[in-house]
C-alpha cells in the first residue's frame, strides 16, 4: 500500500473543525452533529475518540459488538494512527449520528459481481456511497464493520495525532514537523515529552489541514494478533448485556404472541384478565396490536419480577384462544417447488446465451437442492428495557441498528426521535436477528402502559425461537451443459424462495430495497469466481406469512451449498479430482486460486486418511466460496458412524480477507462460522405447523456441542488489499464441504439440508 497524504476536503482553515462541531460538510465522516459523551474531563478530538487527562483513550465505535470482535478491530485501526498506548485504550458506543452510517454495506449491497468495474458500475457505486452517507443508517451487518471504518477510524486517529503534535510543538515553540508521537506521548527533537492526556485540551484548537496515514509496512498494531479488549470482562461475569440492565423500581414483562399470519391478539375474557392481574406480583395485563416492525399482536404481563410475569403469561397462554393460522412449512415448500418449475425467475447475471446452449446440449447435469428455514437462536434471548416519561423515552438494549431502534420507540410512542435516548449494550449474539427491532417496539408499547417506570421485556427461549425472522427455505435447480470432454459450456442456476432483505426493508422502512430484485436471495450464485463460457442465474421470489430476515451470511448460507455441491457433481461427471477441477475454473481468478491451493496444501488433499478409532473410513470434501469481499476454502474430514451419525473430525480453512487486521480474531471468526454452519448443516431445520414453529427450545432445535466439534485450522493468505469481511464468510463453505466428503465416502449425493445419512441397520 502506498503512503497516502491527503487533504480533508472542505474543512477550510482555522478552528472550524472543533469550534463548529456540527457545521461541516454533510458527507465527511470525521465530525458529526453529536459530540461523543466525554464523561466529564475527557476531550473529544473528533467524532471517533476522546482523550482523558489520565491518558485514557476512548475509541467511539458505531458498530455493535456481538462476538465478532469489531470493537477490538476498530480500536486497533484508530490506535495504529494515533500512536497511543494500547494498554490505555477502551471502547464506547457512539451516539446516533450520520457520520456513523454504514457506507460499505450499502455499496456492497448493490447487485454487481465483486469484480465488475465498468464506468457505469463505478458511477452507481459512487452514487450509492453518497446516498449512504446522507442516509446515515447505522448498521452492523454484512461483515462490513472493518471495511466501513477502515478509512474513518484511521483518519480520525491520524487527525488527532496531528493535533496533539501541533499542540506540543506550539507549547515548546518548535516546528511540528520536528516532533513525533510515540506510545501516547509527543516527543520533541531534543527529547522533551508531553503526554496525550496533558495535551488533549490544548489540541482542540490545533487542527490539521493535512494528515498523513501510515504505510502498511509501518503498522505495529494492525496486522498483529492483539488480544480482544473484552475477553477478561466476558470471562468473569462483569460484561453487561441488555438483559443485565437494572434500574430503580424496574418492572418486568413477559408476552404471549399470536401465530404467524394472525392479525389479532389472543382473545382473553374479562374474568381471565382479572384472574391474571390477581396473581402474585402482577401489576398489569395489556393487549398489544403489534407494529410494522414485525412484533405480532400479543398479550403482555407486567410484574415485579420476570418469573412472576412469565408464570402469569404462561397461564394466560393456556387459557386464551389464539387466532387460527394455516401457515405451514410443508405447504410453503410445495409452493416454492411449484414456483421453481416455472423456470422464469428474475435474471441476476447472464451472458453467453446459457439457456440456449443448455437446450442444445447433448449432455447435461441437472440437480435440485433444498435448504430449510432456520432460527437465529442467539444465546441472549430478545430483550429491551424502556422507560417512558412525560417528555420522552429511554431505551436500553443490544441492537445491530440503533437508529432503527430509536425510530421504533419513537413510532410506538408518537414521539420525535430526538426525544428518545438509546443506551446500547453488547449483544449476546446477533447473527442478523438483532437487525430487527420488533422486540424493541414491543417493549415500548408495554412501557407506555406504565409510564415513568422502567419496564424490562424478556422473551423466553420459546418466544425467541418461535418469533424469529427466519433464514428463508430455498430450493434451487442447477443445470450445466457439458461438451464431449466434460467441460462446462453453460451454467444455469434458478432458485426460488422468500426475499429476506426486501421483507426486512419493509419492516424498518428502508426505501431503497423495498422493490426490485433482492440480491440477498441468490447471492452466492451469480457472484462466484468460476469462469464459465455462458452463465444464467435467476431467482423467483415467493411469498408467505412466515417472517424472514437476514441469517448469518444470508443467501450465501444456502446458495453455497447448492453451487459448491453442484461443482462437485460436475467434477464427478468429468471424472476429475474436485480440487483440480475447481483450479481449472479459477485460472482467471488468481486470488481464489491461491485460497484453494492453500486449503488443499494445508489439508493434505489427496493423501490417504487413516480410519477412525472405531474403524470407520474417512474422506475429505472441499468447497470454495466468495462472500462479503472475502474468499474462503474449506476441506472437511468426515466419517459416518454405524448408526448414520455424520462426524466431522477436522476442518482446514484458508481465507483471503485482504489485509488481516487481527489474525487472532479472523481465526476465531472462521472457527465460529464453521461451527455455526456445521450446526445447521447437521441438525438445523425449523418446521412450522398451524402458524407456529414445532421447535421451541434447544432440545428440539439442536446445535453443535463441544463433543461434536471438529479440530479447526485457519490459514490466512497474506495480502495488502483493503480488508474485507470476516464474520460471515467462514460459514457458507462448510455444508457443501461435508456433503462433498460424504459423496466421496459413500457415493451418496445429499441434496437437501440438513444432511442425513441412513443408518446401516436400517438399510
Amino acid at each position, binding site marked *: 500500500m502506498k503512503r497516502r497524504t491527503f487533504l480533508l476536503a472542505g474543512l477550510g482553515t482555522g478552528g472550524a473543525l472543533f469550534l463548529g462541531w456540527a457545521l461541516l460538510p454533510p458527507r465527511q465522516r470525521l465530525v458529526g452533529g453529536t459530540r461523543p459523551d466525554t464523561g466529564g474531563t475527557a476531550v473529544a478530538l473528533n467524532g471517533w475518540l476522546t482523550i482523558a487527562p489520565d491518558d485514557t483513550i476512548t475509541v467511539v465505535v458505531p458498530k455493535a459488538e456481538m462476538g465478532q470482535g469489531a470493537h477490538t478491530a476498530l480500536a486497533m485501526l484508530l490506535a495504529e494512527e494515533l500512536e497511543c498506548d494500547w494498554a490505555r485504550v477502551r471502547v464506547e458506543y457512539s451516539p446516533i449520528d450520520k457520520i456513523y452510517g454504514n457506507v460499505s454495506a450499502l455499496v456492497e449491497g448493490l447487485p454487481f459481481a465483486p469484480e465488475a468495474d465498468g464506468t457505469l458500475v463505478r458511477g452507481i457505486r459512487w452514487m450509492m456511497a453518497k446516498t449512504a452517507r446522507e442516509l446515515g443508517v447505522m448498521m452492523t451487518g454484512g461483515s462490513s464493520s472493518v471495511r466501513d471504518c477502515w478509512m474513518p477510524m484511521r483518519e480520525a486517529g491520524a487527525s488527532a495525532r496531528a493535533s496533539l503534535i501541533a499542540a506540543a510543538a506550539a507549547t515548546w515553540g518548535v516546528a511540528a514537523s520536528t516532533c513525533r508521537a510515540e506510545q501516547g506521548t509527543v516527543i520533541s527533537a531534543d527529547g522533551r515529552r508531553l503526554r496525550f492526556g496533558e495535551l488533549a485540551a490544548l489540541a482542540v484548537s490545533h487542527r490539521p489541514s493535512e494528515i498523513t496515514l501510515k504505510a502498511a509496512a509501518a503498522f505495529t498494531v494492525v496486522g498483529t494478533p492483539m488480544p480482544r479488549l473484552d475477553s477478561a470482562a466476558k*470471562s*468473569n461475569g462483569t460484561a453487561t448485556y441488555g438483559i*443485565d440492565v437494572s434500574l430503580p423500581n424496574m418492572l418486568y414483562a413477559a408476552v404471549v404472541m399470536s401465530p404467524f399470519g394472525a392479525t389479532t391478539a389472543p382473545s382473553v375474557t374479562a374474568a381471565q384478565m382479572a384472574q391474571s392481574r390477581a396473581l402474585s*406480583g402482577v401489576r398489569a395485563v395489556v393487549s398489544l396490536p403489534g407494529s410494522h416492525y414485525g412484533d405480532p399482536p400479543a398479550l403482555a404481563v407486567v410484574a415485579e419480577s420476570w418469573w412472576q410475569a412469565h408464570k402469569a403469561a404462561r397461564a394466560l397462554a393456556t387459557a386464551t384462544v389464539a387466532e387460527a393460522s394455516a401457515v405451514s412449512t410443508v405447504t410453503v415448500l410445495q409452493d416454492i417447488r411449484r414456483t421453481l418449475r416455472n423456470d422464469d425467475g428474475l435474471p441476476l447475471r447472464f451472458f453467453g446465451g446459457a439457456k440456449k446452449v443448455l437446450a442444445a446440449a447433448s449432455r447435461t447435469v441437472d440437480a435440485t437442492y433444498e435448504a430449510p428455514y432456520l432460527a437465529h437462536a442467539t*444465546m441472549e434471548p430478545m430483550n429491551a428495557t424502556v422507560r417512558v416519561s412525560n417528555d420522552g423515552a429511554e431505551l436500553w438494549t443490544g441492537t445491530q441498528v440503533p437508529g432503527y431502534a430509536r425510530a421504533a420507540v419513537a413510532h410506538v410512542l408518537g414521539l420525535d426521535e430526538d426525544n428518545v435516548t438509546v443506551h446500547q449494550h453488547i449483544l449476546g449474539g446477533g447473527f442478523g436477528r438483532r437487525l430487527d427491532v420488533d422486540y424493541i417496539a414491543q417493549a415500548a408499547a408495554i412501557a407506555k402502559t406504565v409510564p415513568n417506570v422502567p419496564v424490562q421485556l424478556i422473551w423466553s427461549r420459546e418466544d425467541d425461537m418461535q418469533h424469529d425472522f427466519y433464514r428463508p427455505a430455498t430450493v434451487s435447480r442447477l443445470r450445466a451443459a457439458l461438451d464431449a470432454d466434460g467441460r462446462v459450456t453453460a451454467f444455469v442456476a434458478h432458485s426460488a424462495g422468500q426475499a429476506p432483505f426486501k421483507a426486512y426493508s419493509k419492516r424498518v422502512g428502508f426505501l431503497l430495497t423495498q422493490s426490485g430484485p433482492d440480491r440477498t436471495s441468490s447471492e452466492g450464485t451469480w457472484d462466484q469466481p468460476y469462469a464459465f463460457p455462458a452463465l444464467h442465474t435467476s431467482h423467483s421470489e415467493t411469498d408467505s406469512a412466515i417472517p424472514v430476515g437476514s441469517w448469518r451470511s444470508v443467501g450465501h448460507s444456502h446458495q453455497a451449498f447448492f453451487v459448491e455441491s453442484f461443482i462437485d457433481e460436475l467434477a464427478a461427471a468429468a471424472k476429475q479430482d474436485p480440487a483440480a477441477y475447481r483450479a481449472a475454473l479459477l485460472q482467471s481468478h488468481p486470488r481464489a486460486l491461491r485460497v484453494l491451493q492453500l486449503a488443499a496444501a494445508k489439508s493434505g488433499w489427496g493423501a490417504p486418511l487413516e480410519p477412525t478409532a472405531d474403524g470407520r473410513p474417512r474422506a475429505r470434501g472441499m468447497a470454495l466460496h466468495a462472500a462479503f469481499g472475502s474468499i474462503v476454502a474449506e476441506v472437511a474430514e468426515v466419517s459416518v458412524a454405524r448408526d448414520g451419525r455424520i462426524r466431522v473430525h477436522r476442518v482446514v480453512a484458508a481465507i483471503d480477507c485482504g489485509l488481516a487486521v487481527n489474525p487472532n480474531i479472523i481465526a*476465531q471468526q472462521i472457527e465460529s462460522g464453521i461451527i455455526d454452519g456445521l450446526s445447521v448443516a447437521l441438525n438445523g431445520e425449523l418446521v412450522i405447523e398451524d402458524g407456529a414453529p414445532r421447535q421451541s427450545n434447544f432440545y428440539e432445535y439442536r446445535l*453443535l456441542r463441544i*463433543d461434536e466439534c471438529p479440530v479447526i485450522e485457519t490459514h490466512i493468505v497474506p495480502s495488502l488489499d483493503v480488508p474485507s469481511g470476516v464474520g460471515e464468510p467462514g460459514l457458507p463453505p462448510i455444508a457443501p464441504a461435508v456433503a462433498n466428503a460424504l459423496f466421496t465416502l459413500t457415493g451418496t449425493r445429499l441434496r437437501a439440508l440438513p444432511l442425513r445419512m441412513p443408518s446401516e441397520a436400517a438399510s
Partner: protein
Amino acid sequence: MNTPNSDPITLVVNGAPATVGVDADTPLLWVLRQTLGLPGTKFGCGIAACGACTVHLDGVPVPACVTPVSAAVGKAVTTIEGLRGAVAEAVQSSWAALDVPQCGYCQSGQVMSAVALLSANATPSDADINTAMQGNLCRCGAYPRIRAAIHRAAEALPTRQQR
C-alpha cells in the same frame, strides 16, 4: 399490591447470607439476577438445556434456571461473581489468554463448568472435557478454544500430589 406467597428464604451466596422474599417456586437464577443483583449468571433456555445459568451448589455445577430457590437453602451457592481460588484464576486467565469468548453470553456458565471439572480432575482428557462441558452450549462456536483453555489451565495448576 400482591405479595409473595411464601416466607422469607435465607441463602448463602458467595459466602454471605442473603434473605429474600420471593415465591418459593422461583428458580434460583432469577433470585440471583433480579433479587440479589448478580447478573453474571445468564438466562438462556429456562429448561437446563444450555448451561448459561450454571452455578455451584456446594461446589457442584447445577443449572440455576431449574433449581427452585428452596433447593438452595442450606447449601453454599457460588456464582461467577464469587468465584475464587487457584483453579478459578487459572481458568479465567486461560480464557482471556486464548481469547475464548466471542459474544461471551454463555461464558459465565462455561467458566463455572470448567472450574468444577478442574477442581475434581486436575488432568482432564479430551473425553473428560466432552463429558463435563457437553451441557454448555455456545452459539459462537468457542468450543476449540474452550478445550484448549481447559488444558492450558490444567497445565498451569499444581498437580494433585503437590496440592
